[in-house]
């Protein structure tokens, strides 16, 4: 076995272990000096990125890969179900970890300049690395209890990061709101895991998916899991923490927090499609009594409308973007809900593809807008839209980046938002034209919202108080520029992305039986 195979074999745990080790080395390294620490964090995340690339290449060519902790086989002697913790990586997991690592690396580069003159930065980078660890862990694990542990880590670390500006009362308030909501949510998840263990004596996702009966207790567990994870993903009507947390956290953090929200969204997908995959496929007849699908569709339409309408009336730049993020999460759930109504056939497949692709695009577009809002805050120390104006004169690169973000988020060609939204529109039109009309109208409203922001921030007469405002430092420009380049490439060549990573992710979701078979060979 050569070294490359060895790395491939051990890459799933290493992807989690490298940032975890780096997190606790960061306080030591930052004793040397700040530049060394920043480079150290970046290098460690790049190593993680490289491992993800190796693992991704392997999974996309050779199929699902499992890694069992504490032994080569999932079954110690005398057991007939897997009891060991295992990581199970398929196309969907790879898709999510790619998003996470892109967000993490760009967020770190952006933080270099953005957080430069603040103290407590060793703790800041430590907690960011722990947050990245927890997201990667949630997205790679094949064990429900392990999922809960990483969920709690992400809840604790995101709360600490939201409250990073301790001198502001508002950020403490947002952080407290967040931790109350997410710790109760995590306890619900734990209760649901207990319900699974009580019935099936297993914690392994594939084993539970194989054994699931969809009885009364399973329905309760489904409700608890979906409610808790959709709440952490910020789906209406459980979105109220999201504008507060996104609005009050430092913008570099908000960018990475978006990844934590998407990790919870991955949890929803894994539960709906894999764990309850058998139950939905066999026990519930398609479309006629598809209550949960229509429930998700209704909630996602509500999310889109509420997000857009609330964004219209905001005067705070970051809160406005946060409401736009609520609407974007609605689009993702819309694609997924329509995909659930007809799993694996015709328009359902296209809708699912669109929804999955939109996860990536939402992270990039909304993330870019948050970074621009952060850049403007850095340059002017202002977050209220009413007090800004004429900034295009001083910050020309940031203006261009904002225009790209604006067009991408509202689904204008040739940017990436157009590609995924078109897939969603086209498929939901076949399910029900009214859904498509509402979705397109909301998208146009989103464009209107951001054009308004564009005029009030960048256009208009030059304000005397902004006479000395300069363009932001280079590392922030590099971070935003990298996202813009990715957005344009994805927008111009959407097929490249769809064929290579989105299609495997969507088909991995639909194909729950091979997920089960990989762990329990011989089960049909």
């Amino acid at each position, binding site marked *: 076995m050569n070294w490359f195979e060895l790395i491939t074999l051990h890459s799933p745990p290493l992807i989690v272990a490298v940032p975890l080790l780096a997190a606790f080395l960061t306080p030591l390294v930052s004793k040397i000096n700040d530049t060394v620490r920043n480079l150290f964090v970046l290098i460690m995340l790049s190593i993680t990125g490289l491992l993800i690339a190796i693992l991704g290449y392997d999974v996309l060519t050779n199929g699902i890969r499992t890694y069992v902790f504490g032994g080569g086989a999932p079954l110690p002697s*005398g057991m007939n179900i897997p*009891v060991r913790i295992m990581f199970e990586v398929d196309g969907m997991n790879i898709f999510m970890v790619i998003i996470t690592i892109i967000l993490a690396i760009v967020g770190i580069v952006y933080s270099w300049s953005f957080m430069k003159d603040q103290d407590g930065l060793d703790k800041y980078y430590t907690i960011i690395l722990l947050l990245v660890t927890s997201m990667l862990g949630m997205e790679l694990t094949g064990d429900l*209890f392990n999922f*809960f*542990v990483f969920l*709690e880590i992400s*809840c*604790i670390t995101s*709360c*600490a990061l939201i*409250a990073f500006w*301790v001198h502001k*009362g*508002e950020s*403490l*308030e*947002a*952080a*407290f709101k967040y*931790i*109350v909501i997410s*710790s*109760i949510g995590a*306890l619900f998840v*734990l*209760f649901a*895991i*207990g319900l699974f*263990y*009580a019935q099936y*004596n297993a*914690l392994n996702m594939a084993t539970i998916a194989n054994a699931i009966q969809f009885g009364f207790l399973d329905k309760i567990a489904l409700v608890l899991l979906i409610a808790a994870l959709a709440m952490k993903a910020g789906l209406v009507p459980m979105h109220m923490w999201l504008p*507060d947390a996104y*609005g*009050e956290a430092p913008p570099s953090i908000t960018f990475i927090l978006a990844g934590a929200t998407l990790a919870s969204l991955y949890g929803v997908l894994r539960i709906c499609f894999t764990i309850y995959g058998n139950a939905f496929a066999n026990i519930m007849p398609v479309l006629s009594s598809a209550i949960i699908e229509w429930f998700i569709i209704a909630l996602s339409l509500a999310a889109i409308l509420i997000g857009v309408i609330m964004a219209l009336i905001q005067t*705070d730049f970051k*809160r406005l973007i946060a409401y736009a993020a609520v609407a974007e999460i609605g689009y993702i759930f819309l694609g997924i809900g329509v995909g659930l109504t007809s799993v694996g056939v015709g328009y359902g497949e296209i809708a699912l593809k669109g929804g999955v692709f939109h996860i990536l695009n939402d992270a990039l577009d909304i993330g870019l807008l948050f970074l621009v809002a952060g850049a403007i805050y850095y340059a002017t120390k202002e977050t209220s839209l009413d007090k800004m104006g004429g900034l295009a004169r001083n910050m020309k690169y940031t203006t261009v980046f904002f225009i790209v973000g604006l067009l991408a988020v509202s689904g204008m060609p040739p940017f990436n938002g157009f590609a995924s939204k078109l897939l969603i529109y086209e498929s939901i039109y076949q399910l029900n034209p009214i859904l498509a009309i509402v979705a397109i109208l909301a998208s146009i409203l989103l464009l209107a919202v951001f054009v308004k922001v564009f005029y009030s921030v960048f256009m208009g007469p030059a304000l005397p108080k902004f006479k000395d405002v300069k363009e932001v430092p280079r590392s922030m420009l590099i971070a935003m520029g990298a996202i813009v380049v990715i957005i344009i490439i994805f927008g111009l060549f959407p097929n490249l992305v769809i064929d290579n990573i989105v299609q495997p992710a969507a088909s991995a979701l639909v194909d729950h039986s091979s997920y089960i078979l990989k762990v329990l060979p011989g089960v049909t």
Partner: protein
Amino acid sequence: MIYNIPFIAVVVMIFIGLYAVLFKRNLVKMVIGISIIESGVNLFLITLGYREGGVVPIFTSAPSEAVKNAPGSMVLPVPQALTLTSIVIGVAVLALMLSLIMHIYKHYGTLDVRKIRRLKE
């Protein structure tokens, strides 16, 4: 019926905790509510670990006839492991929440949720 008492206690504890979180105005009381929910969930997990006639899964202190005659009678220690992990996580969350409350009190001078409303709707 007697075996169901722990489960009834679990449900009662979770609802008491939810009541405290939803209806109490004091931040510390809300945190106490979350702690009660957590205890309820932990009790649920540990109750699941009980098997009638099972042997405690500590190899050295198990009765020798149980080890010899019925090796399968040792219960799987998974629920206990889960509960320990969840207790540790709970302590971390509790500490974080209480430290946040300290900072909030410094900024706002009150622990009443109705007065801690600087964030806009």
